[in-house]
């Protein structure tokens, strides 16, 4: 019993230390977002609000241009435009990334099952497909640009309707699906491989069809794996910058592209406003993390209870 206590205490100590490491940068960012220019990089560091420095909403007002912060007074047109742009960036990202990630997960999992149970595509298929991810996207961006902007002509010539790809939602979604499929396939393959075939055979012997076997036997066991895969793919797409920069704008505007504009604002870094943007953008992510974590836990315990 004593040993258990000590072990538990040690565990909390180690985990707690990592919590500090994780939260320190986040804390600093939120803190800086409330600081005035003189306090951003002062030495000694200003830690506590109201004690070391005067907190201010100046940075938030600046990124939303609410009320204007310069001598020239209010600039109505930009205030509305600025706020709209930030919301549009978030909305576009959410829509594109969610659709692409879910679609990628479904298609990839189905294929991973086929590969695991039937060897679809041959022995080397998983490896060839993985090479897709090994090419740094930077260079492929230009050929993609050439290709995407000439697709309308190609389709028109083939007698079809005019299919626009450049700067469209569907263009980016399809591209994100294609580029994340290799990971989905790989990860789901490993998780599905871990499910013993005997379980499925047993179910089939008892008269269940393929689809219901998968639904009732395989799916629950890989659910946690699917959640992890979905999360990973979601994050990859969420942070994807290069392809979005090259192949979208202005109709489609994802968050990473939008945020990069602020970064280069004044030949470098205005820490305050950037911290404010960072905070605004991180809050929903933290909330999402909390929600997902609950499902991850459920997924794990579900798997264990079954056993």
């Amino acid at each position, binding site marked *: 019993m004593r040993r258990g206590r000590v072990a538990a205490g040690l565990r909390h100590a180690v985990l707690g230390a990592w919590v500090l490491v994780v939260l320190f940068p986040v804390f600093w960012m939120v803190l800086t977002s409330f600081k005035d220019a*003189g306090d951003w990089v002062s030495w000694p560091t200003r830690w506590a609000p109201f004690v070391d420095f005067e907190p201010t909403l100046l940075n938030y007002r600046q990124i939303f241009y609410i009320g204007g912060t310069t001598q020239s007074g209010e600039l109505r047109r930009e205030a509305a435009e600025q706020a709209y742009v930030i919301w549009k960036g978030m909305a576009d990202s959410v829509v594109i990334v969610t659709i692409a990630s879910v679609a990628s997960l479904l298609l990839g999992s189905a294929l991973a099952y086929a590969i695991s149970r039937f060897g679809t595509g041959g022995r080397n298929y998983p490896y060839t497909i993985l090479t897709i991810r090994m090419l740094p996207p930077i260079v492929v961006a230009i050929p993609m640009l050439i290709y995407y902007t000439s697709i309308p002509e190609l389709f028109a010539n083939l007698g079809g309707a005019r299919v626009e790809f450049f700067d469209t939602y569907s263009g980016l979604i399809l591209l994100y699906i294609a580029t994340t499929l290799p990971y989905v396939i790989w990860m789901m393959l490993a998780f599905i491989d871990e499910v013993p075939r005997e379980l499925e055979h047993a179910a089939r012997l008892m008269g269940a069809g393929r689809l219901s076997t998968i639904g009732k036997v395989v799916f629950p066991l890989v659910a946690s794996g699917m959640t992890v895969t979905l999360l990973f793919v979601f994050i990859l797409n969420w942070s994807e910058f290069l392809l979005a920069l090259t192949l979208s704008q202005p109709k489609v505007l994802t968050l990473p592209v939008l945020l990069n504009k602020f970064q280069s*604002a004044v030949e470098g870094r205005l820490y305050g406003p950037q911290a404010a943007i960072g905070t605004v953008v991180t809050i929903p992510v933290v909330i999402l993390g909390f929600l997902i974590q609950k499902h991850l836990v459920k997924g794990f315990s579900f798997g264990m209870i079954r056993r």
Partner: protein
Amino acid sequence: MMRRLGIAGMIATLVLLAVGPARAADVVPGATVEERAVNGAKAYLKKLGVEKLDLTMMMVSLFAKAQPKYLDEWEKLTGIRIKTIEYGYTEIPAKIMADAVAKTGQYDIYNHQMYMLPDAVEAGVVIPLDDFAARGQPYFDDIPKTLRSEMYYKGKLYTFFTDGDQTVLALRKDLVELPQARAAFKAKFGREPGCPDTWKQWEELASFFNGKKGQNFYGITLEKDLYGAQEYRAREFGYRWWQGRFSSKNKLMFDRNMKPLIDGPEGIETTREMVSLTKYMPQDVFGWGTPQNYPFFAQGNSFSISTFPSIVGYANKAQGTVISGKILPCVVPGSVVKGKLVRRSVQPAGTNYMVSKYSKHPEAAYWFLQWFTGPEMGNRAVADPDGFWDPFRPSQGKDPKIAEKYGSKDFVTITLENARIAVPMIPLQGNREYFDALDVNLQEAFHGRIAPEEAMKRTARQWEKITDDIGRKRQIEAWKYVVESGAYLDAEGF
């Protein structure tokens, strides 16, 4: 033979006479540059038979606050609405080049810094404006030759000048005027401290005007460490200031066959000077861009700074500044070449508006350019406290609003003088490759990892390779235009 020529000549003259006046009549009516631009735009719309027109401008996000009101005004005057799509200035070159490849026609106007022009022209994504200018008659004869040359590439006009970023040297007036300091300085160096004539003199000032926190500095107690100097030493910046200093040795960077001349004694001396001055700077300067350098100076941490002209306005008016009213702007120092003092500044950025080749209404785009950069509008832009356009036209020296923006009347006079001697950064195709080679080697020298001679030798070698890769004949041709336009004044080596 003569008779035939005679008749041909007569016919030719008659034709010319008929066509000539018609050509002259092409000039758009209007007493001022701006008026002509507005009339030209209105005439264009009339020709199209529309009342309104939409254009798109790719804009540096820096101008997001300042530009819109001018666009609104333009819309009211002409019915042409210009929508802006902003990018950080680090992304715009890539986006312009992407447009060259994709030919989307999405943008009518590109806005970036002056050095982008050669690559944009060679990529075939912008159009020359000579024909439009012949009709619109913009006026740029009063701006210095050096700056005016940046509007052209290989003899053709592509953009208008609207932002004088020529570097300035700013000193701390309050420190320079300390009576005890003045006496001690004079005793040591044989002259009164003040705006230096040469780079060496600046270094002498830096070596004198520094101290530690708490030290008694000629009658005052230093509240914090005082550094002698500040100048850009970071990646993407250092090489710009190097070019100004090098030009003050009155030497060109390439000869007429595009052989680099930077590894000669002048180039090595320039690098050595910059390395030497670094010892008076805060060591953190290696990672500093503008948002770090500016507040550091404004909070009274150093005696002098060589940077963009906006420092003066910033140090006088920004939040948190402790040196308001204590700044002494100076004409950039120089070097003594063959007995003469040669001062040279550099134009390290500037603002550039180009018309896209794939625009559906290039003429409409042109009229906006002429209007916004005209003497009247241009001055208003420069006087705008939200904008980042800085003075460059002589007429701006008399504008009280502009002096008000910077908080200092002397400053405007000084920066206009700096404009007169501000050389452009290498205005050739592939200039960013040349810059990068110089930058990386300079960084090695600044950090003390290689000697200045080695740094310049390597740079020269890399520059030769770059020139060969781009095409030596093309570069030779373009460089000839540059030198003959007077961009580098009377520098030698061609």
